[in-house]
């Protein structure tokens, strides 16, 4: 039985898109308006995850002839095989970009957490409203 997949596909993509936009706004709100340092870090990693999801979303291919997209690997080295990969496979570059961004995000988060630890040893609090010895 042939199910028309494209309606479900579009529906799910729309849900993802709306969820990502909501996530984006929420995480920006969290970074700027939540007073606690750890909550800011959580919002920041939410933001970077949202950015990564948007990137993966851009590399996504729709189903062709009722078949889901394939991985971008050429197994059949004939003209038809290459043509098939070009027609069906997902874009391999966005995952590569995401990989780089994830590693960088890990480093940033680690640094932030360590900085938070030192901040706590100095101020005995992580509430950013109370950490203002500097004039700005």
């Amino acid at each position, binding site marked *: 039985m042939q199910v028309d997949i494209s309606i479900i596909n579009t529906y799910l993509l729309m849900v993802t898109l709306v969820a990502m936009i909501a996530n984006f706004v929420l995480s920006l709100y969290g970074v700027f308006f939540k007073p606690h340092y750890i909550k800011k870090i959580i919002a*920041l990693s939410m933001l970077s995850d949202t950015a990564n999801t948007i990137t993966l979303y851009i590399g996504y291919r729709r189903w062709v002839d009722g078949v889901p997209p394939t991985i971008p690997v050429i197994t059949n080295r004939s003209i038809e095989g290459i043509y098939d990969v070009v027609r069906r496979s997902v874009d391999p570059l966005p995952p590569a970009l995401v990989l780089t961004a994830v590693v960088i995000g890990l480093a940033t988060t680690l640094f932030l957490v360590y900085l938070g630890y030192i901040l706590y040893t100095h101020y005995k609090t992580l509430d950013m409203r109370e950490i203002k010895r500097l004039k700005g």
Partner: protein
Amino acid sequence: MADYLLHIVGMATPILVLLSFAIPVISKAFKSKRAPFVAAMIGGIYAAVASVLALYMVYKDNSPLVYMYGGWPPHFGIAYEIDYFNGLIGVFTALTMLAIMLYSLWYEHHIDEPTWYFALLLGLEAGILGCLYTGDAFNLFVMIEVLSISAYGLVAYHRDRPEAVEAAAKYILIGAVATIMYFIAVVLLYAGFGTVNMAILSRIAMRPELPQSLKYLAMLSISLALWVFTYKSALFPNHFWLPDAHPEAPTPISAALSGLVVNVGVYASARFLYTLFGDGSAVSGYREFVLLALFVLGTVSGVLGALMMMIQRDVKRLLAYSTICHIGIIYVGLAAGFAIGSAEAVKLALMGTSIHIVAHGISKAVLFMASGIFIDATGSRDLDAMKGVGRRYPLASLSLILGFLNLAGLIPFMGFYSKLLIALSYLKIGFVLGTILIIVISALSIPGYMKAISAIVFGVGEAKEGRVAGRWVEVMLLIMSLSTLFIGIFFQQAAYIFDYSSNSLVSGVQNYVDAVIKKIPPELRGWIP
């Protein structure tokens, strides 16, 4: 032969990163306290040689230099591209960084963990050079992160000081958001244009029949990307972190951040608004709007920096506000591109901008390093406590005065010509307000400089006996200060290099694009318009 030289230039950034990661191992292996410094110095000298070589090769071939990593043609692999504009800033950055590393040797009694200090310093240099030389929008993101992480780490270097940690926390929390925004901008560019190579993006953006949706996408990308660029260069609404972060860092790092790192944001803005989406590109109306907004923000930044400078008592905070003021002037010069149709005037303004980047960078590095000597002598950063200390260090005082005069724009200095050219170009455009604002900002900033000079050099205070050792540092600072004076005196002879560098942003964009397109094999070139 030339190929061999090309590899020396192209491997500069990877070698600096490798050396940076090797420094902990090196210091374990050699046990000497100086080992990290020697390793960093090797990296700094290599970077200086490579950057000078790069500029020379651009000059010799009279076309932008393209280095393809792993031999992959552009757009399939990462390509670095050097023209006069980034080549010039690269040379100035590498040479100033060399001076900052030498100064770090003098400063080493404050550095309790030289291993991590020099590792981060080399990482910072790799990040700056990578940001300047890259011809790939995504690689720019990676390099901005390399630069940022090093800068965050160095600001928080004195981690036993609560203020330093707080400044770093403020800097990183918003900085990380800004770089994620740039990542989204690059991804959107890729989604719309199908490439992240700057030259190919520029070629596609030049197509007049670009679909409307792509234009909106490009506008969104420019807006998102400019946030991180203005954040890194501390333009007005994004300047809040700089007066905290720069003074709290160790003094050589203050010099590097204020003199070199802020230029990266300026450079990237220029790349986006002149090369990627330049004059006559598909987003032309929006581009002029953005440049006009940058003009307004630049003037606000200049006036704010100049006014805040007057009321500072802390010498390093005073210099930090001076940086905000000068970044404002640089952006005012950069923004001249909103005047369509007066290409000659825009070129003049960009020439002033590139001179001002160099003049401000050298002088600001000198001023921070000289004030470091005075801070060491008095044990305080307060200008009142420093009264008269400069008279015990005549060479450092002289370089301090020369540096302030250069920033103020006294006649034979470089800083005079840069402000003159920017002001003249606004006259040529017919936008007299720009000229007036440049003069107003310069005038407003003078009391701040005079305050610092009169307190440090001419003030009368209790003369503490004893003298911080290190005459060679003072001589080095004096040489750096004199270089701005000499470039100003021999401006007729030096002008052509700045002329070329501004040209590469205006009429040289075609060369920039063609140099990359030429490297792509013809059979893979078909889809590029």
